[in-house]
């Protein structure tokens, strides 16, 4: 299974619990820099990498353990948010860790719920990364894509960089949004 398939696409909260493993101290290890992980992800010899280190192998997915202490009020906040989202606290924390690390690695990219799960989109805009890629595939030009959205070029290049790094995730988002039957005619 490649790194792409282990991204936190998640489906609406709680549907990606297999991406998170419960605590097991024997699996703990040092964490990697995101840039290192991403670089290795493109190496065919590194098929078992994940976004955090200390690899745990089971039949379906490699996961890893991360931990950190937070003030008690944030623990209560996360517990409340997990209840509201009908998911476990550990799943929600894992999602926060993964998405925040990706947002840091790819400035301008954020994540939101969609019918197909969590979806990468341009922060402070309403356009998903897959939608930028779709326009780029039509225009075959960053400049024309920039003109289409009337954005600065950097927004387009950021979206395309994310799409290039995670093509499988973007493909699934796109299919999830476009392969369904319209609700009305």
């Amino acid at each position: 299974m490649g790194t792409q398939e282990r991204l936190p696409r998640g489906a609406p909260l709680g549907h990606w619990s297999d991406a998170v493993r419960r605590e097991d101290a024997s699996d703990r290890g040092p964490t990697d820099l995101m840039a290192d992980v991403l670089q290795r992800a493109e190496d065919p010899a590194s098929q078992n990498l994940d976004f955090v280190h200390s690899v745990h192998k089971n039949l379906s997915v490699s996961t890893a353990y991360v931990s950190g202490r937070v003030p008690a009020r944030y623990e209560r906040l996360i517990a409340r948010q997990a209840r509201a989202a009908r998911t476990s606290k550990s799943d929600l924390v894992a999602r926060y860790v993964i998405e925040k690390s990706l947002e840091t690695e790819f400035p301008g990219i954020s994540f939101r719920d969609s019918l197909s799960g969590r979806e990468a989109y341009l922060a402070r805009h309403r356009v998903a990364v897959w939608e930028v890629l779709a326009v780029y595939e039509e225009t075959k030009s960053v400049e024309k894509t920039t003109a289409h959205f009337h954005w600065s070029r950097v927004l387009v290049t950021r979206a395309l960089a994310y799409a290039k790094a995670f093509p499988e995730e973007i493909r699934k988002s796109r299919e999830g949004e476009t392969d369904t039957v319209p609700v009305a005619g």
Partner: protein
Amino acid sequence: MKERPTQSRLLADENTSHRLVSACRRLVKEFPIVHIAGWQDGSWLGLDDAALLISCAQAGLALVAFDRATLPWHAGQVLRAGENHGGLVLFRRTVRSTAYGDQARLLTDFWVHEGHAWDWVNRIVYLPKSP
């Protein structure tokens, strides 16, 4: 005599292009559409789907967008929550993102012949319409 600005009734979502708005106005003078980036100084760009749909209802605007499954799903969620949305006009997936002329013809034809007279609250239409 000063010309009165046309009151907008359609709001083009951000996944459509400004060129759609321009193309519509070339086909129909004062076509009542505004792009979301130009509406309320762009302050609606940061709204999520549900908030945008509710805001559109309050402003009497139908949202024009490319069809992505989550948007009509959110429209349903808005209804189930007891709120209204202002209506959706969605370009089917057969319509290319950059086919501005086709989009404008579909939208203006539909609006001039039918859409302008409708009560758009909680209504969803796909373009091109089903035969």
